Every structure is written in C-alpha cells, then in structure tokens.
C-alpha cells in the first residue's frame, strides 16, 4: 500500500512539471529559451484563483490561468521575437515582474501580502474502473492528470509528426531555411512561445487548484525544474515527461522520508545534479536545437 501511495504522490507532483516542461519543448524547439516559465506558472496560478474566486467555478479558473499564461508569454514573445532581445534576460525580467505583480494583485484583491482567500478546486471525474483502483484511483480521476497524459502524447505527435511541428523545429534549427520557403520565422517562434505560455499557465492552475489558494511565490522554482527536465529529456515531450516523473519521485520520496531523520536537502539537490551531469555529457549527450537562443535577424545571415 505504501508503494501505491508513493506512486500516486509521484504522479500528483509530476503534473505541473510535465505541463511546463512540455511547454518548454515547444518554445525551445522553436528557437526561444523560456526561463520565464517560472513567472508564467506563478501568474497562471494567480489567474486560476482570481477566476475561481470571481465565479466560484474551477473551470473558469483554469481558463483564466491559461489566458494569463498566454498573456505573459506574449510579453516574452514581443521582447524576444519582435524586438530580437536576449531571451534569457527577458525571461529573468519577466520572473522578477511576475513576483512583484502577483504580490501587488494579492494585496489589491485579497488585502494580504502572503495568501489569497480559499477557492474551489477541480472536482474529479468518477470514471468507472479507473477511479476505483485503490490508492491511485483518486489521482487518476483528477481531470488534469488525464489531460496532462493526453497533452504529452499529443505534443510528441505534434512536434515530430505534423506540419506545424516541422515548421516549428525548422525555426529553432535553421530559421533561414524556413524564410527561404516564404514562411515567417517570427510567426513560428511566437506560436511556440504562446503554446509554452498556455501550458505553463495550466501548470499554475493545477498548483492553485490542488492547494485551493494562491500563496506568495508558490511555484518555488518549479519552472526551473521543468526547464531542467526538458534538457534531461533531450528536448522531446516524452523524454521530458519521463524526467518529470523522476524529479517528481524525488519530491515524493522527500515527503515519505519526512521525520525519518534523512536529510531532505540532499534529495532536493537530485534534479539539479542530474541536470548538470546530463549537460556535461556524463549521462548521454544533450544537444539543444541549433539556433535556440539566437534572435533571428534576416539582415545578419
């Protein structure tokens, strides 16, 4: 039974990682580094709480989170794609902005600098068969868990088997080839960033709906872990999702070992150390898209 609970906890924890790192795949495959995932997730979580607070419906909250994520990602796209500015700096700027904005709104709406009022969560489906599995059933019945699995599969197909994916990857590998075909590099890249924004917003919605509230800085670095998972997963949705499960398991293990005297801090480091080892080439080679991070400038070829 303990192992079933552990698996259930791993799944639950992995959901936001998987959504955001799927988004990271789309952004980076299109040629745009998205360190802003952390801030987008945070704004998405706030979006959920505002939507759910105003209407009393979790699904309105989800829609608000996705819209908030899209809007924040649009800001990243404008700065990096339209103006061609440095992508990493833009991401950091957005994260700083998001931390301030969410606190600002929290104070204006809920008159608190630390947490929002309690809001509704997302009620689970009662799916015959799935929901009745002991231990793990309630997790599987949660609509966003199933949606995440579907999105990862769809994302893998979309990136590597569809025209959209081919064009998006071309924008991240050899943007000049895309331009030669008369297609807009900027448009492809913007789409990639927007997809990542919607998914990171959804990840924020999951966090807020699970917790039934927004708390200051509640993403606590999950956006960066999602980015790391994408690297460990070699820029593929399936690989990234697998890495998210690994990182999620490390988190779940921390909860399991709580009170056993085992130093949790050492487990906390696991995702970061694994990522560094992968980057250094000790665990397979991680090759980023050829033109990721390089603004596309048709005048400078």
């Amino acid at each position, binding site marked *: 039974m303990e192992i079933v609970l552990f698996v259930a906890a791993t799944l639950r924890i992995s959901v936001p990682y998987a959504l955001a790192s799927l988004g990271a795949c789309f952004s980076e495959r299109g040629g745009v580094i998205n360190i802003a995932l952390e801030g987008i997730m945070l704004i998405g979580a706030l979006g959920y709480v505002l939507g759910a607070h105003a209407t009393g419906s979790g699904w309105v909250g989800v829609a608000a989170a996705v819209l908030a994520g899209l809007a924040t990602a649009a800001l990243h796209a404008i700065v990096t794609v339209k*103006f061609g500015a440095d992508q990493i700096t833009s991401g950091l700027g957005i994260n700083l902005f998001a931390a301030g904005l969410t606190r600002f709104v929290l104070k204006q709406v809920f008159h608190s600098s630390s947490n929002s009022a309690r809001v509704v969560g997302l009620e689970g489906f009662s799916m015959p068969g799935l929901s009745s599995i002991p231990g793990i059933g309630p997790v599987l019945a949660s609509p966003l868990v199933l949606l995440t699995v579907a999105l990862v599969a769809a994302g893998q197909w979309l990136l590597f088997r569809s025209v959209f994916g081919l064009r998006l990857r071309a924008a991240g590998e050899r943007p000049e080839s895309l331009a030669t075909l008369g297609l807009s590099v900027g448009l492809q890249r913007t789409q990639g960033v927007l997809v990542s924004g919607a998914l990171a917003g959804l990840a924020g919605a999951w966090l807020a709906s699970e917790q039934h509230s927004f708390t200051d800085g509640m993403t606590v670095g999950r956006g960066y872990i999602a980015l790391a998972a994408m*690297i460990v997963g070699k820029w593929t949705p399936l690989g990234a999702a697998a890495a998210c499960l690994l990182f999620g398991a490390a988190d779940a293990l921390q909860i399991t070992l709580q009170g056993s005297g085992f130093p949790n801090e050492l487990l906390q480091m696991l995702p970061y150390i694994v990522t*560094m080892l992968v980057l250094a080439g000790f665990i397979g080679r991680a090759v980023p898209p050829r033109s990721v991070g390089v603004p596309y400038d048709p005048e400078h070829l």
Partner: protein
Amino acid sequence: MPAHPPTALPLEPGTHSPRRPLLSPALLVALAPLVAVAVSLAIGGILIAAIGENPFEIYALMLSASFGNGYGIGQTLFLATPLIFTGLAVAVGFRAGLFNIGVEGQLYLGGFAAAMTGATLAGWPAPLLLPLAIASAAAAGAVWGAIPGVLKARFGAHEVINTIMLNFIAFALVAYFGRFVYQPATVRTAEIGAGAVIPRLGDWLTALRSAPVNLSLVLALLTAAVTGLLLFRTRGGYELRAVGLNAPAAEYGGILIGRTHALAMTWSGAIAGLGGINFVLGYKHYFEQGFSGGAGFLGIAVALIGRNHPLGVIVAALFFGALSHAGLVINQRVPRELVEMLQGLVILSAIAAQQVLERASRKLH
C-alpha cells in the same frame, strides 16, 4: 548555443564619415538605459494612478525618502552596496560573453563562508580575522563560479543552466549544513567575533548614524576600481573582452577561449561572494537563511543599466538601492511590490530599447 549578452557592443567600424552627425550611433545606443528607466517609471506612474494615487507626488516622495536626509542616504547606500558587487560580477561575465545567473547562489555561499569563519575563529584579532573572513567570502563565491566555468570550458556545458542549478544546490547545501550550525530553533548562525565586524560609517559620520551602511561600501567601490583596471588596462582583461566580443577571432589571435571562460567565471564568482559581507559582517553579524533576497538577480538589472562598466554599475546600483528603500517608505500609500514590478520592467525595457536603438543607429550610419 551560448547566449550572446545583450549589451555586447558591436566592434567599432573601421571607417568614419567625415561629417559627425549630431546624434552619433554609439551615443544613441548608450541612451538605452535612460530610455528604459523612463519607460518603466512611466508604466509605474500609470499603475500608481490606477490605484488612485498621484504618481508625481509618490515619485517626489520616493526621491526625498532616498536622498533627502541622512538616514535615507544611509539606507540607499546600504542597499546599493551588495548591488555594486553583484552588478560587477554579472558585468565581468557579460564582458567575457558569459551569462552568470549564479550570482545569487555565489553571494549566498560567500555570506555563509564569511559568517562561519567569523564565528569559528571568533577570538582572533581583527587584523587577522577580518581579512580572513572577507577572503573566505570571495573564495566560496569563486569556487561556485568556477564550477560552471570549468564545465563550460571542458565539456561545453551551457553556463546559464548550470548556474541556475547551482543556485538551488547552494540553497539546499546551506540548509543542510545549517542543521549542524544554526542556533537552536533559528535559521541563523552564531554571532561572529568582534574582530570580524566591519564598522559602520555612522561611527564617524553622524548624519548616517542610524543607517546600517558600513565600510563594505568602500570595499565595493575599490572592487569596482580594480575591476575596471583589470578589464581595461591589463592583457588578461583585454583577452577576456576579446573573447566576449568575438570568440573565434580571439581564438585566431591565440587566446585560449576555455581558459578565459573558466577564469572569468571564477573572477565573477569571487566578486559575487564578496557581496555577502555587507549583510553578514557589516550589518547583522551573523548569517541568516535567505539573507540574499534577490540581490544576485537584481545584479543582472544593475549590469544592464550600467552597461557593464564599473562606473555605470555604481550609478545603477545607487538607483536600484534608492528604489528599494523608497518602496518601503511609500508602502503605506502604494504597495511596495510596485518597486519589484518596476525592477522587472526596467530589465525588459532595457533590452528592448537596446534593440530598437541599435536598429535606429544602423540606419543612421
């Protein structure tokens, strides 16, 4: 692919037109930080108006809070001190074509190392203990900067991701060691010895008496001067900048890129580590979990607005220090979170303005 730092200037063109235009292209690009600050303050003004306050009144209040009296000036200088260090650290990285996002973690470890040295050797006399505590801060930061530098030189691993990862590892590592060294039921270390204390400026200048600004500020200014000399007046500094401007050309000229990258990151980390002493040795006299409070990340904004020049960094650090202090003062009328939003907006508008003005200057040519 390494991200090119946003502020790397294009190489000077070899030919000049005989007639100098009123607004030279270089001057136009140099205006980017001012444009960015103006745009951000304008957006901030709209937000202030949106919550029913008068933006001009609030900004005037902020200005007088930060510079209008001895206490305000002392607070501004105190908050600017770590930003000078972190801004310099980021700037050194940028000059070498590297993006050191790990400044936050390097500063954090620097503060922890200084506190541990100061507390462990508490009985030592100041002439020995103080330099040792300061040196241990620099050493801890240097090690934490060297790791991504060497990984980049040896394996081509991207320093941005590695420095992000190392920030989190630094926080977890300190939390782990904290289990053994924190005072019971707190998240702070024992008090440092009297010999490790950096005196406050208020001990000599009565106007600054109640503010925590201390001699770390002088060390920050000295570090800026030394950094400027090393960057612009030595062979090593020239090599570092050459690698940052055009790595293949530098390599063709016989400069070892990997070695330069590793050294630049180590140097950058050492400066960042020094940033920890302001709080630990100069203010609280112990290390407290989470003391860095984003000073490392704000260093990126400082370097951007300071255009990676030591003098620019000092001015930008004063600006952001003043903004932080003013945010606390106006908190009764406008949430101080506004200032945090402004910090992010300044970064975004700085890099956008840089691009817009560079394009305009290309047309001017």
